[in-house]
């Protein structure tokens, strides 16, 4: 493959699976759909791809109210009406009131860019379907001005999803797909080291043990993920915590578990552990 292939960056570790998926998508000019648990670095991936391919990154964060149209262009009717009312601006020129959205911007860019459509599953179910044609043809028409915006260079499109909702088949068929599995301990260690190159060996071991212990607790609403561990190691290091106490006391637990109910579960678990330890000492 050409030398411009994606191999991860100095602060983003990409598995061979992921590298292959990215390179296939880039080369075939198909959107890359990345799915995985929250916190496994889906959004960071886009940044890493942009960095390593030397392209500009355009981010389109999707919310529950986002419509496909927003990404193409917005026609500011209200502004135009006001301008015509008060004789300001140039209401005769429709084009002045057309603003390109992120997708439009990516198409219009003179160079090849990376466009990330972040958390596509947050939006309405019809949202991906509404984008099919535009993503396929990489062009769209603006009826107000009679203009057609076409991609000069087909952007690298990365779509992330938390898999909360099913995506339509027609949409999937056009994508290259990759599922980011939760990293195994060895990979996890590597990732943490990238973020904290100077971390104390012992602190890292203990933090990892504590982290996997918390992650495996039953009934968690939001299982902690990579980003939580990275933050936790930071907090433990800055807080000057004695590595020997980490697994027993789980300090700064709020960095790892974000929901009150989850913290309660962990506290109960720790109480049980403490009782058990006390019983063993009595014996």
């Amino acid at each position, binding site marked *: *493959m050409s030398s411009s292939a994606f191999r991860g960056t100095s602060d983003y570790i990409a598995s*061979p*699976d992921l590298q*292959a*998926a990215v*390179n*296939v*998508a880039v*080369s*075939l000019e*198909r959107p890359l*759909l990345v*799915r995985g648990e929250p916190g496994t670095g889906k959004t960071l991936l886009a940044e890493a791809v942009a960095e390593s391919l030397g392209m500009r990154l355009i981010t389109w964060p999707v919310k529950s*109210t986002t419509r496909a149209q927003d990404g193409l262009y917005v026609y500011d*009717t*209200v502004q135009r*009406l*006001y301008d015509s*009312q008060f004789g300001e601006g140039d209401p005769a020129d429709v084009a002045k009131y057309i603003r390109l959205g992120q997708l439009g911007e990516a198409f219009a860019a003179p160079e090849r860019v990376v466009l990330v459509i972040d958390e596509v599953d947050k939006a309405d*179910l*019809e949202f991906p379907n509404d984008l099919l044609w535009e993503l396929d043809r990489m062009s769209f028409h603006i009826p107000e001005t009679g203009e057609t915006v076409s991609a000069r260079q087909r952007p690298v499109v990365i779509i992330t999803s938390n*898999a909360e909702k*099913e995506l339509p*088949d027609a949409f*999937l*068929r*056009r*994508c*290259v*797909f*990759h*599922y980011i*599995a939760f990293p195994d301990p060895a990979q996890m260690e590597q990732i943490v080291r990238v973020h904290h190159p100077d971390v104390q060996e012992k602190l890292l071991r203990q933090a990892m043990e504590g982290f996997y212990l918390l992650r495996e607790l*039953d*009934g968690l*609403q939001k299982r902690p993920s990579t980003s939580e561990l990275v933050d936790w190691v930071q907090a433990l290091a800055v807080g000057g915590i004695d590595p020997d106490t980490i697994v027993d006391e789980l300090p700064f637990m709020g960095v790892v578990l974000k929901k009150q*109910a989850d913290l309660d579960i962990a506290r109960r678990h720790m109480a049980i552990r403490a009782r058990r330890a006390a019983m063993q000492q009595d014996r």
Partner: protein
Amino acid sequence: MFEGLFTALRDEGVPVALDEWLMLHEALERDLHESTLSGFYLMSRAVLVKDEAHYDGFDIAFARYFSGLEPAGDAVDDRVWKWLEENPHFLHISEDQRRRLDEMRDQLELDELLEKLKEKLEKQEEEHHGGSEHIGTGGTSPFGHSGYHPGGIRIGGQGRWKTAIQTAGERRWRDLRTDHEIGTRDFGVALRRLRQLSTRLDGPATELDVDDTIRQTADHAGQLRLAFRRPRRNSVRVLLMLDVGGSMDEHILLLDRLFSAMHQASHFRDLQVRFFHNCVYDRVYTEPSLHPRRSENTLHLLAQLDPDYKLVMVGDACMAPTELLVPGGAIDYQYMNEEPGAQWLERLEEHFSHAAWLNPHPKRWWETIHGAYTLSIVRSIFPMFELSVDGLDQAVRYLMVRR
């Protein structure tokens, strides 16, 4: 090329369409797999599989097509497995050797490699370890394990260098399968009835109402007055609770249809699905397998869900009276419920402003059926409707009444 893989994938239930197959060939033409089998594995998976639940099926199909891996037991027979399992040698190679082998990576074509493996399987008569030609361990031949050969085929053993196409045989995506998908795709009637759940009662007014704007502007002698209206969005959220215990088996088809109709009714703002066995107690299950590891605390669930969720319970409500009325009466004998089931049902009903129970038994049987006693208790707690098109329609109407 590789049509066999296509068929194998379809056989494994991986929904591969022609579009994707053409995409794969486009990728092949551009040599995106770098002429290696492992490259081909990753590339074809990225292009052909669109759901992590199908990774496992893909692995099986891939392994079967490029036989020699586990599922193709007849190609790699016990004889070969024995060579590989007994006396495994581990290879220690120098950096220099490794570099030379890496250079060889591209020299061997995929088809050639498979051809060669086939040949070896036919001819090799005894075990070989530490060599560079035959199937064995700790060597630099492309076949076997614990050795080093870029782009080779690992058979058994543990992946050490992660260069060979070892992953297919490992089936590490097994846990992500969702075979037990409940659902057919054609219960259009229920779907249509459920559409009545749509509402435009709440939500912010964000859409410009052109007609009203014109009217109001005219009313104000041409001075611009903007009028907005609520976009047509649905605000209905649903919690669906399904009884999947033994006595519900006979209704499985009916349940399937309801379930898929609910899922296809994509207009809900949110749809939560939980499962239970006969009655709800302090834990509900997130999967129909009713596995305790896939369960959650009922109180937590209630705390998470706003009372404006519409609760739809589905069950036959026929059980032993103790299951409803006595602490510890839950049907799963290892399960100790401290409060009787009826109390949990009341708690559920009280939490949500709208709740209904759908019973797969026809209404005319309710008085006389085996289990009529508990059915009548459940009916005193939940408004009950029969699970038929008409019953569903009534339930939906009931759920939409303002309270």
